[in-house]
């Protein structure tokens, strides 16, 4: 019973997290990046690890 309840609880938590992550935090708003961090904010612009090596040119 207890195990069932905790599994059920975990599922609900995961479902809520999923809704938050996949679904979207939307709303009319003012948003600013002043570039004051001395690093490019991965929460806004993605992970720095996505920097690509220079591609070969013909």
């Amino acid at each position, binding site marked *: 019973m207890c195990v069932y309840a905790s*599994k*059920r609880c*975990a*599922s609900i938590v*995961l*479902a809520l*997290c*999923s809704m938050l*992550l*996949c679904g*979207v*935090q*939307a*709303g*009319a*708003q*003012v*948003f*600013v*990046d*002043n*570039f*004051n*961090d*001395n*690093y*490019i904010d*991965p*929460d*806004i*612009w*993605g*992970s*720095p690890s*996505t*920097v*690509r*090596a*220079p*591609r070969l*040119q*013909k």
Partner: protein
Amino acid sequence: MGVALYGSGPQIAEVNQELQFTMPSNSSGYEFGSRLLSRFLLRGDFDIRVDFRLLEWPYYNGVRTAIGLTHNPYDDYGVERSSLSASEPLGAQEVYVADFGPFVLVPTQDFTGKLRLVRSGHTQTGYYYEAGRWIPILTDSAPTSDIAIQLHAWSHDYAFQHHDVRAAFDNFTVMTGQIIWVPEPATLSLALLGCLVVRRR
């Protein structure tokens, strides 16, 4: 989404509380540059703006800077503060450019300023800022789907004049608009795992 460098030479970094694009004089490539591609999408009508400063900018150096909309990390359409060199078909010019429809050039001597893109329904308008007011460059059709934005600086071998060039963007602002945050791949995996667990119940 993310930070992208392409071609040989360009760099991008937050320095002195602004976003700096650097093109060393030996930069090269059919097209070379650096860009930030947003993790968020903009839905519906919106108004986005960015300030620019041309820190090291010999006249007619062949480098372009822009705020643009994009469905594709390798392409974008928007408003530019750009330098055209003598080796280009349009000749040497310092200009604002709207490049999302007919290619519209507005000559300028501005080394600091602001760029703005506004989407309203099926149209978008590109602006620059002069004497305390926004001057429209072009209104043309716009994609109506959710769309990412890019902050971008680039050049081409046929245009670049091999000067050291530096430009900076600051105060990127979504004045109005609906922001849709897109999860990073790792976060997305976790979310999908959560969905699967729920389905198994």
